[in-house]
């Protein structure tokens, strides 16, 4: 027995010694690079602890985190791999105490001589504004035409828990896409398309799920990209005929092309659909609708195609402008079409207009041509002030040479999430940034925190359509699945 006691005590003492903070004797270390980069970002008060890799080389690392002006509350020791995992409970306590203030990340590295060298503190503001608690996204391989496992998941941003909302393994590997919510709230309204033998558009409201046909009678094409009005009554759809084609050379792998597209609005209460000649003509392609908060204006992208039958060959000459049209909810009539940003005149193209909850700002993606910005490395997020009509690139958010695209406002308008491929160029990852509705300025974005520091280095699926929501959507999971299997799609007729 005795022979085990001494080694055991030694081990305990050694472990105790290891976890005790070291006091660096040098203070000349430059701030280390972090992957993902959390240096100087603004955290919402309720976000889960970030984990990251320190990519500079050292034999060991010490990370200390505390409220600015106070002693460190968290100390994490890492080996040469630089993997930093912050205890969630201590992190939450720290953020709660630092809300409205800032925290510091203090790094020290063990040098070759065994001394510890400390870097200057990295300061990260902590916003007292909470971010919506849940983020939903679709996970799939960043493939092109084929798909295998696809699922829509809900991630609790206050922890690392991810729950499935729908997984196609439960319905014969059919495709699901375009999940969307009314006013960031699945209890108000949630929809998703199912493509395949059980195809249709699932619409969940007030605890009930309906399956309607995605192909409206009288429409030229099937319902595709959605936007749900904040009151939960209307869903605007673009009805697209989409083609895909593959770049023979260069940095873009694929081009997703609209061969045709129209806009229509579906009234979920009365099961009626509306459109107008302005939005359905063959001379132009209209896509990516988005509602103003009052549900009286639709923002969308529109391009003119000279050769619709040869859209693929002329893909790089298709430029989408940012447009708007008024909608009367009482009679389903459209009026007052206008162009807000003539991107074509600028030799540019826009996609994904999304209006802020206060109706003052419109965020969109800008690229050189086309509409499917998620495959365009040059795509950048831009912000349009709807009061002044001025727009600018969100340079504080964009990456210089990687996709910055699909974005979603949080319900408060003070946070937004967007897809960026800045980490590796191929896989879209959700990035979160704060937004000041007064100034229209955003802060440096950060990658969605994950439980494992090396997560983004190894995870081979892409995060598609990140959407912030206030309440869990997974509550609808069994009803949605049941509707896929048991309901026949209800026919909807389009009125012009």
């Amino acid at each position: 027995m005795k022979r085990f006691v001494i080694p055991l005590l030694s081990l305990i003492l050694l472990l105790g010694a290891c976890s005790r903070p070291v006091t660096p004797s040098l203070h000349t270390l430059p701030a280390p690079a972090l992957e993902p980069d959390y240096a100087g970002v603004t955290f919402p008060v309720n976000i889960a602890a970030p984990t990251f890799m320190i990519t500079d080389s050292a034999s060991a690392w010490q990370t200390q985190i505390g409220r600015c002006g106070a002693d460190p509350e968290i100390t994490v020791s890492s080996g040469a791999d630089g993997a930093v995992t912050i205890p969630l409970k201590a992190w939450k306590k720290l953020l709660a105490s630092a809300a409205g203030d800032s925290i510091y990340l203090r790094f020290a590295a063990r040098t070759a001589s065994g001394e510890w060298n400390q870097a200057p503190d990295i300061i990260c503001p902590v916003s007292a504004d909470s971010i919506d608690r849940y983020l939903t996204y679709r996970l799939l391989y960043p493939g092109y035409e084929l798909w295998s496992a696809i699922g829509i998941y809900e991630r609790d941003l206050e922890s690392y828990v991810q729950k499935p909302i729908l997984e196609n393994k439960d319905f014969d590997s059919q495709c699901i896409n375009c999940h969307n919510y009314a006013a960031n709230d699945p209890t108000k309204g949630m929809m998703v398309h199912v493509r395949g033998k059980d195809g249709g558009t699932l619409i969940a409201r007030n605890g009930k799920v309906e399956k309607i046909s995605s192909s409206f009678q009288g429409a030229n094409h099937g319902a595709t990209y959605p936007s749900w009005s904040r009151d939960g009554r209307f869903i605007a759809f673009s009805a697209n005929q989409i083609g895909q084609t593959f770049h023979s050379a260069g940095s873009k792998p694929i081009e997703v092309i609209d061969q045709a597209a129209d806009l229509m609005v579906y009234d979920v209460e009365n099961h009626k659909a509306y459109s107008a000649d302005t939005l359905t003509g063959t001379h132009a392609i209209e896509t990516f609708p988005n509602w103003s908060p009052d549900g009286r204006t639709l923002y969308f992208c529109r391009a003119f195609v000279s050769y619709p039958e040869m859209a693929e060959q002329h893909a790089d000459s298709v430029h989408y402008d940012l447009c708007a049209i008024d909608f009367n909810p009482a009679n389903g009539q459209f009026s007052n079409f206008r162009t807000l940003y003539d991107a074509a005149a600028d030799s540019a193209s826009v996609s994904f207009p999304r209006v802020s909850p206060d109706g003052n700002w419109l965020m969109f993606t800008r690229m050189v041509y086309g509409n499917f910005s998620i495959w365009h490395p040059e795509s950048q997020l831009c912000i349009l002030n709807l009061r002044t009509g001025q727009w600018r690139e969100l340079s504080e958010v964009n990456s210089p040479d990687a996709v910055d695209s699909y974005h979603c406002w949080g319900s408060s308008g003070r946070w937004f999430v967007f897809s960026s491929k800045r980490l590796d160029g191929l896989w879209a990852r959700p990035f979160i940034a704060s937004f000041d509705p007064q100034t229209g300025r955003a802060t440096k974005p950060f990658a969605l925190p994950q439980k494992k520091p090396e997560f983004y280095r190894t995870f081979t699926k892409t995060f598609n359509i990140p959407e912030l929501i206030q309440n869990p959507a997974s509550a609808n999971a069994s009803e949605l699945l049941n509707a896929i299997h048991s309901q026949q799609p209800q026919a909807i007729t389009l009125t012009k």
Partner: protein
Amino acid sequence: MKKHLASASLLLIFFIAYMTLYRHVVIFHEQHHLFRFSLDYIRETAHQQGFTAPCAAFLAQFGYYPWLAALIWSALLTGVYCMTRAFLRRVAGFNDSLQLSAIIPCWTFFSTVNIDGSLNQFVIVVLSALALYCISLVLPARKRVISIPWKPLPYLAPAIIAAIFGAFYLYSFHPVTVTLNGTERTFNRQEVKVQKANEELMVKAAQAVRRKDWDEVLKLSDRQAETGVKNHLMLYFRAMALYHRGELLDRIFEQPQSHGPNSLFFPWKADKNRAEYGGYIYEQLGALNSAIHWEFEALVGWGETAYHLINLSRYYIETGKPKQAEKFIHPLKQTLFYRGEARRLEEQKKNGHVPGLRDALANVKQNPADFDPVRFDNVLNIGADCKYILLNDPDNEMARQYMLLIFLLANNIGVFYDNLCQFYQPDEPLPRIFEEALCLVRLNYGSDRLAADGFKISPEVDAAYRAFLTEKQKGRFTNFTPEQRNSLWYYLSFVSPSGNQLNF
């Protein structure tokens, strides 16, 4: 000795069968699974495909060394036999002298040699046998044992087991893989033998292509031609092998090119079976963007298997995207047999180059700073892609030969001639079939045009053409000589799926 005779003979039969009759299937399974020593992988795979899926992948990985897989799989099947036998004896009091316990492992064996199936059934049987055996251990053993009172019976165990195995072999019917035969129809029993042999040849040919063993590919395609089965995949492999042997233009018509220009490639369809093989040609042409497209689709369709991960890593390294390559190298590091490959790829990533791989379109810029009009793959006809490659990589001989050959196989003699003028110097020696094409060009454009462009038809080819025409006019197709059958004229007259109409 007597006690172990049956299990030893069963082990031996399985092992020999795996190593001889079904060695290619063992390799096939290995190439279509990848077990990773990672909790995340196990959790995710079990969640998506059921708990047997990671177990099946674990067993399949040993196919990296077919003898090892054969040994482990045979031992497990023999274990099933022993445990079933023990269960029967302990619970039912039945002494299995008739070796009925061999039926389950034999049936399971034949489920593992079906390349359309998975090893999940195998896993379920092994685990079930283990569970039954464990149950039998806790139950009280039967005191009275029922036995057939014929003493030589135990010595006949090997023969009985061999008979059970043989019966399964003779009557087993595997649905021939859709991938390789391009058909979903069910074969009748008379056809099964031919189809089984055909499937074996195609699986072996696909494996030979991956090893770049072109002689073996040609040997297998010759053997397949003898079965009389026409197969797109084998024609595609054969053309590739002929090119690498420097014999494409001389020997292309040795086998009827019944798929026309498609004999040289697979037109893209959103289909994981095509995706598995269709990208090979793009890698060899140096069209790495297209190779990535095909390989990525194969990975989506078939999962993260070693072959696709390695290829994607190679392509991304060569096209200067190390971070993307890293993502595909990482899973290889978590495997038992591909760690070395992962290390090699890491080295290549550092160097930024993969030996034996080249990006023929590396100099084409398509970014906003240096904006060229976009150019998309022609997914239905590789001829246009070959021309694009050739324009950007003028020394690409494979693109040159494939492009011109595709025009000929599509009956497009006029386009062929235009491109011949563009990409061949008049003083370059012309392959025989190009001279044969010139005979047709002369008919349409006249000798003066040929002379003006600097092309000549040799007297031998000229004479052969006249002889072919004479024979054709007689209308007795059986009288064509092997040389005449191996000509472009014969193909255009009797084989081309586009008919005998020539396009100028």
